[in-house]
């Protein structure tokens, strides 16, 4: 079952060109416990390719991508 938004770890990486949303997500995943959910917010178009690719490669789960005005919310669950 997915966690409610209030239980998720929110990583607001909007406007982050360096180090960028993917690095914010990797930081968040490294700090999270197995089973926890994170949301990384990104306005960077490149995140739509980078984040799903890395999440799959690193063995975690992308629960969804929610489009908002000017940015997207990537919801990720730490699996290992």
């Amino acid at each position, binding site marked *: 079952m997915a966690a409610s938004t209030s239980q998720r770890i929110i*990583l*607001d*990486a*909007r*406007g*982050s*060109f*360096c*180090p*960028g949303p*993917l*690095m*914010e997500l*990797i*930081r968040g995943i*490294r*700090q*999270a416990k197995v089973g926890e959910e994170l949301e990384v917010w990104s306005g*960077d178009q*490149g995140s739509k*390719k*980078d984040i799903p*690719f*890395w999440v799959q*490669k*690193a*063995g975690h789960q992308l629960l969804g991508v929610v489009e908002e005005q000017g940015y997207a919310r990537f919801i990720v669950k730490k699996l290992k």
Partner: protein
Amino acid sequence: MKKVVILGGGVGGTIVANLLTKKLRPDEAEITLVDKTGKHVYQPGFVYVAFEHQKPGKLVRDERRLLKNRVKLVVGEAVKIDADGKKVRLADGTVLEYDRLVVALGARLTPDELPGYKEAAHHFYSLEGAVKLRQALEDFRGGKVVVTVASVPYKCPPAPSEAACQLDYYFTKKGIRDKVDIHFLSPLSRVFPLEPVNPVVEQVFAKHNIRSTIFFNVESVDPDKKTVSSIEGETVLYDLLIMVPPHRGAKVVEESGLGDRGGWLPTDKFTLRTKAHADIFALGDCTDVPVSKSGAAAHFQAKVIAESVVADLRGLQATAKYDGHVMCYCDAGYHKGISMSFDYEHPPVPPPLGLKDWMGKRFLNRVYWIMVPTGRV
């Protein structure tokens, strides 16, 4: 008399202190800066200690000499921030009360977090580390050099790719480049953190035969087998390993229960007030603000904090906002460099790689002591 306490005598803390002496009358506020060593260190110079024999002593100055006379310097270590009581306790038992606190403590290197790191890896993220790396490079006669980062976040995101370029230049000058295989492992989807600049760096890597692997986030190091493995499932061999050590936020922040799980201080990315306490500001590497952990970010953030502290103490509405501005130079070797400037709204538009930005970096290294900590620029 109001009291402002600043923790940390790096670039950010020093600029805040000096700007406050210009903006606040002596009868308005007492300004105290606490620093563990009383020494100010120019960290961007470390890479030149490793690769170019920059003398380590040139990168360190007495903090007292950089501060305006009005700033009271306390050499000591803050061990507890009592946010509710608005007090900071130092290791020697001294207690400092504050009306506004500025946390500018930087990031902490934590090599013990990665088993095997100390035995296996070299780095250039401290003066001591850079001096050891310099010796290792002098002794190196050929083989595979791996450059990577132990974890994220880390200070100065472009530094590892800059180091890969510096290695190529170093071994070329030494005449053994054909005996050295340079392999760069990036935690991200590209070799350079800034997407608009990445194609330029990829061209440099291709031209100088620097190999790269992307999506490599280090999971473990084996000093006996001389291997590095990633959480993505790859393993790479090395003869010489240059790895940025793991980082955490400031110890006193963690031990005062103010940090997140990595010890980073949750901070509003615009106002630079800490999210839990509006009377505590934070800047630079010790925060969770999503910009590069760099002196340039701390420099620009310091100006915002100085303005906000003045407004607070005078009972005015603080309106200063940090716009995410960061500016930096990278040295690609062969007297070529590149500069980047960006903020939350504007991605970098890189100028071509060239002599001008290489000279810009050298110039900044020289004028830093006169221009930056003083708050002149």
